[in-house]
């Protein structure tokens, strides 16, 4: 399976089949999640209606971490086994992850203003997510900073793995430092502490964000592989014209 998809052509075939399915699942999950989250779920007893930002904020934050781990893993696979499709996957993941991180920061600011009275506080969770955003930007900048794309993907793969130390810091920042951001309430040893009426729309939205990521990932990877093929064809044409 692992070696099977090292061939870009096979991967393209699979991606073409999967993309519409992923798009459909994303739409269904998002519609259900948004309906349950925005209309059917109760308002919070303390936070009122603003709690509904959660249904975008939490999935975005979750995807910010998920994409980074995906980025680092595919970068490592590309670096160690010289897996060409893994390299493409890492390159395609970075901008998506950066967008999710930005969305998490933005919705966090929108939520923070009515709850904490400030758009931004320098708490451990917020700061470490901001660092994550810079790591994505650094990865993309390093990736495109070399004339030889091979060098770029290798150098940035090492950077992606170095930046992985930030992921556990983000996850546990709310437990290690007692700051303004509320502690974890879903992934806990003693089970989630959210009422099921809110947990279900949240899970649906997380599912929708995840399939959305996979969908966009397939689109970006297909585009990039097509571009590579076009470039190769043009090169051959140019050489033939010269000969």
């Amino acid at each position, binding site marked *: 399976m692992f070696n099977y998809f090292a061939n870009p052509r096979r991967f393209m075939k699979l991606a073409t089949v999967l993309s519409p399915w992923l798009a459909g699942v994303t739409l269904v999950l998002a519609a259900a999640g948004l309906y349950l989250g925005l209309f059917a779920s109760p308002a919070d007893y303390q936070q009122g209606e603003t709690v509904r930002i959660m249904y975008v904020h939490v999935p975005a934050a979750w995807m910010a971490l998920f994409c980074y781990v995906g980025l680092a893993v595919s970068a490592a696979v590309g670096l160690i086994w010289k897996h060409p499709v893994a390299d493409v996957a890492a390159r395609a993941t970075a901008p998506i992850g950066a967008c999710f991180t930005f969305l998490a920061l933005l919705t966090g600011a929108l939520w923070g203003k009515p709850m904490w009275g400030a758009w931004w506080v320098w708490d451990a969770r917020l700061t470490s997510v901001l*660092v994550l955003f*810079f790591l994505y930007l650094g990865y993309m*900048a390093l990736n495109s*900073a070399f004339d030889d794309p091979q060098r770029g993907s290798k150098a940035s793969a*090492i950077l992606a793995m170095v930046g992985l130390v930030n992921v556990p810091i983000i996850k546990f920042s709310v437990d290690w430092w007692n700051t303004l951001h509320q502690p974890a309430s879903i992934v806990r040893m003693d089970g989630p502490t959210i009422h099921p009426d809110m947990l279900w729309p949240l899970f649906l939205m997380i599912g929708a964000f995840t399939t959305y990521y996979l969908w966009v990932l397939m689109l970006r990877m297909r585009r990039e592989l097509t571009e590579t093929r076009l470039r190769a064809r043009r090169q051959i044409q140019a050489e033939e014209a010269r000969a």
Partner: protein
Amino acid sequence: MTGFRAILMRDLRLALRQGMDSAMVVMFFVIAVVLFPLGVGPEPNVLARIAPGVLWVAALLSVLLSLERLFHTDFEDGSLELLALSPPALEVVVLAKVLAHWLITGLPLIIAAPVLAVLLNMPADGFGLLLLALLLGTPTLSLIGAVGAALILGSRRGGVLLALLILPLFIPVLIFGVGAVEAAIGGFPARAPLLLLGAVFAGALALCPWGAAAGLRQALE
């Protein structure tokens, strides 16, 4: 071990012969710190309040300034390839070069810091901790920076890129370094931030030579 010493002595000798080059980092540090009283105003209370943070941020930027040259000159003139072919492992080469870099840039910063702290009117309780925190923090900066310096070899606009790659990774050192000094000034125990600084240093010492060596290897391919 002989290889380690030989590389260390070579880098130190090179830095001493070039004279001004290594002094430039300390000069940048001094000038950057001096800009703050001019920018924020000479109010003693305000300066005393921001002194630990100003010193640490200026130290971070000065180390960053010197990092681009850590491997670059050796990469340009081809001696990096010879170093990679020499008997000691590339990780050991990296460690020797990082130690030389710290001796040339980190140590002068630590010596200059108390003088600048006096200029900034920092309370005397913080001086010992400032030195201790810098002593733990600056080698960490050199180690983390070595990874970035190895990765940007042969890239376009390496210097600006290095800042984008490395400054986010410097943030823990900054937070705990300032935390230690501020705890000492406020009369709280500074043990926890110091231990965390030590932990970051130990982790960087164990992992960064590998990362930097991997970066160098793919630059030399």
